[in-house]
């Protein structure tokens, strides 16, 4: 039976080439856009470089203080002092990585300016993260303790600063008017992973500002590594309890919020306790996708109705010989899904080309978008949804056609 439907579908597609072209164009283009979007989101949220143990990690990215009476709020990342005292002392996490958010500085090579983003880290950072070292190794805990001027640099920085040399390890790089000895070179991290991105990584002990200053706000964030997944809720709870006991730093404020979040939640935190970044992102995205799909769907429905009405004599004959409405609807849906699948395949090719184009244009450096199985799966899902969505209404209308009027046309 299915084989028959398939044959009919192909015959119909061949008959009205113009309509087939429109349908395929609409479907493939819409799917390509959706797939590029999925690839981007997938890359931002599920790329596991450099934090491969993401499913065992919790992220502390923000501290908000609020004065209920004064109306003042202050929200930013945290100070090293605060994280070291309250987060690093938690009992359940195995390791706590503390690092500053990246910040730019200049360096000049042969009278050419290079902008370098630097990031201070503690020694545990290299154990919690799984950076891929192309050469050398991270700085050791002893080097951090002694405040040695050593650094881990990214592949891009090596190329920009040293040019094409076989190895940069042991060489000196000048940043912020200070000479640092290169201890290792790591694979680039795209800037979209903004909490972990940097061009050079430095021990926090060489930071020019005083890391033990007793303020709560600063440029630092932390990653808590749990021994196993089951410990995550326990760590979350433990951190909440610690925060509840932290004394307020100034009398302007009387409440304090800071959370140990999953990667996505921490990534999207707005810094305001009342506004959930996750909710805003999900709502925004859903509204966009629905609106974006509305127009092509309407268009397809219109075209499908036209197509079906054109075949009313065929439908009339089938009905006259006793085909049930259900069989007709079923047939038409199958035809439609075949059409969308063909469109989907073209869409995959289109999106592959679009992704290549985006990668080559380097809109976001080091962000290599790719079609992976997840993206393909979502694309396929969207295909089927699209086929059903744009096929159901025309099929329903067709099945209600009266035999006589259908035959007459």
């Amino acid at each position, binding site marked *: 039976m299915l084989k028959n439907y398939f044959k009919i579908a192909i015959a119909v597609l061949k008959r009205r080439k113009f309509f087939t072209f*429109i349908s395929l164009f609409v479907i493939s283009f819409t799917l390509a856009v959706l797939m590029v979007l999925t690839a981007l989101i997938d890359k931002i949220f599920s790329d596991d470089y450099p934090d491969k143990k993401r499913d065992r990690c919790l992220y502390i990215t923000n501290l908000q203080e609020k004065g209920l009476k004064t109306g003042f709020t202050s929200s930013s990342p945290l100070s090293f002092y605060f994280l070291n005292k309250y987060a690093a002392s938690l009992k359940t996490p195995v390791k706590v990585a503390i690092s500053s958010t990246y*910040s730019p*500085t200049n360096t000049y090579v042969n009278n050419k300016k290079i902008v370098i983003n630097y990031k201070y880290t503690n020694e545990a950072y290299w154990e919690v993260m799984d950076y891929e070292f192309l050469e050398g190794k991270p700085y050791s805990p002893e080097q951090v303790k002694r405040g040695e001027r050593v650094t881990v640099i990214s592949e891009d920085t090596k190329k920009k600063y040293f040019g094409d040399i076989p190895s940069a390890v042991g060489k000196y790089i000048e940043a912020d008017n200070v000479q640092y000895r290169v201890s290792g070179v790591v694979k680039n991290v795209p800037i979209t992973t903004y909490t972990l991105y940097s061009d050079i990584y430095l021990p926090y002990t060489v930071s020019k500002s005083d890391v033990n200053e007793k303020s709560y706000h600063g440029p630092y964030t932390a990653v808590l590594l749990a021994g196993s997944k089951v410990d995550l809720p326990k760590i979350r709870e433990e951190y909440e309890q610690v925060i509840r006991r932290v004394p307020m730093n100034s009398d302007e404020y009387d409440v304090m919020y800071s959370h140990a979040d999953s990667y996505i939640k921490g990534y999207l935190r707005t810094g305001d306790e009342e506004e959930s970044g996750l909710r805003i992102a999900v709502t925004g995205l859903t509204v966009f996708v629905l609106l974006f799909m509305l127009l*092509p769907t309407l268009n397809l429905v*219109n075209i499908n109705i*036209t197509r079906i009405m054109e075949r009313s004599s065929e439908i009339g004959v089938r009905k006259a010989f006793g085909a049930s409405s259900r069989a007709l609807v079923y047939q038409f849906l199958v035809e439609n899904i075949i059409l969308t699948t063909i469109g989907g395949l073209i869409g995959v090719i289109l999106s592959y080309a679009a992704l290549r184009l985006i990668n080559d244009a380097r809109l976001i450096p080091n962000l290599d978008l790719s079609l992976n199985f997840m993206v393909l799966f979502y694309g396929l899902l969207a295909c089927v949804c699209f086929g059903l969505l744009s096929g159901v209404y025309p099929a329903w209308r067709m099945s209600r056609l009266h035999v006589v009027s259908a035959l007459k046309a």
Partner: protein
Amino acid sequence: MVRHLFILIWNKRKQHFLLMFEMLVSFMVIFGVFSLMVYYYQNYRKPMNFDYDRVWVINYNNALKTNNSDSLSLFYENVRKTLRSMPQIKGVSYASANLPFTETTNSTGLTYKNNRLNRINNFIIDDEYAAVLNVRMLDGRWFNKTDAVSTNRPVVIDAALKEAFFGKEDAIGKFIGSHDNKTKMKVIGVVGNLKSRGDYTSIGPSVFARVDTGAFHWLGNILVKVTPDADAAFESHLYKSMANAMKNANVEIEHLVDKRRSKNNFFLIPLIVITIVAGFLIVNVALGLFGVLWYNINTRRGEIGLRRAVGASRSSVSLQLVGEALVLTTLSLITGTFFAIQFPLLNVGNVEAGVYLTALVLAILFIYLLVLICSLYPGRQAAAIYPAVALHED
């Protein structure tokens, strides 16, 4: 004639519902894209009111740890002297972090005669700011040394704030209150609206106040105007001397020209992406419309043949079909306009009503044009039908 067309459409309203809905949605999409374009274009045409070429930004952080404001002032005066001593530097101004072409905002509330405004951009700058950026003065004067001792803190406001508080009146010499109306500030000058967030957006009312000694505790930016011969070698030299003068600070030098480019891209790239996507959507819709109209006309061969047989000319047949399509469009555009007009009425996004209205008119014209193009060919095809052939088929 038009009434007749309306009746024809009305009789088939169920059949046409989806087509009209599709036009309505396309109209809303086009309206959105045009609103954005008109808004950008309108801002693009406004003058910048300051110069950004050959202005560099020096960013630093906590260079000196002390609670003593006097020693802080002394320290930063020395930094200023170091900068001034370089022949390539023409002007130096300390400024709060809301520099031109940055993300940072710093806002405050102000009152004038029971009229309280919130979210006014608050710039803390010094006497040379206007010279460094060549800010266009409209009225009054910029700050100078004598302002340090005045009893009421002097402020300079921009044209937008003057309009909001004083309207057509003269603003110079008037007093405005702080957000709680406890302290009074004297207006000494009015500047043009600075487009300090790039070419494509305006920033709204702004107030400028002079750096006081306490401000050095948190300031972190210096603007310098350099001569045309300041090159990368000089920049490297400048960088070294800044890093030496502020031993404990992290220093970074940026150029306003580059910052403007990236700020503009921040607005332009989304617009380009949206336009491309909307463009493809419209091509989709156009093809779809074309197909549907063409099919509709094909199913009406008998009717058209009859009209031609009783003497209707080719052009009147084709006019009728195009007219029908346009009436359909009109119906959906009326609904669309009802939704679109809510944007200026509800003052969405605090954008001038003119932007939305221009976009509305453009969108209406665009959709009419689109439908006209899509229906012309099917209409002409219909006109080419021979009455004898069409009637014979029936």
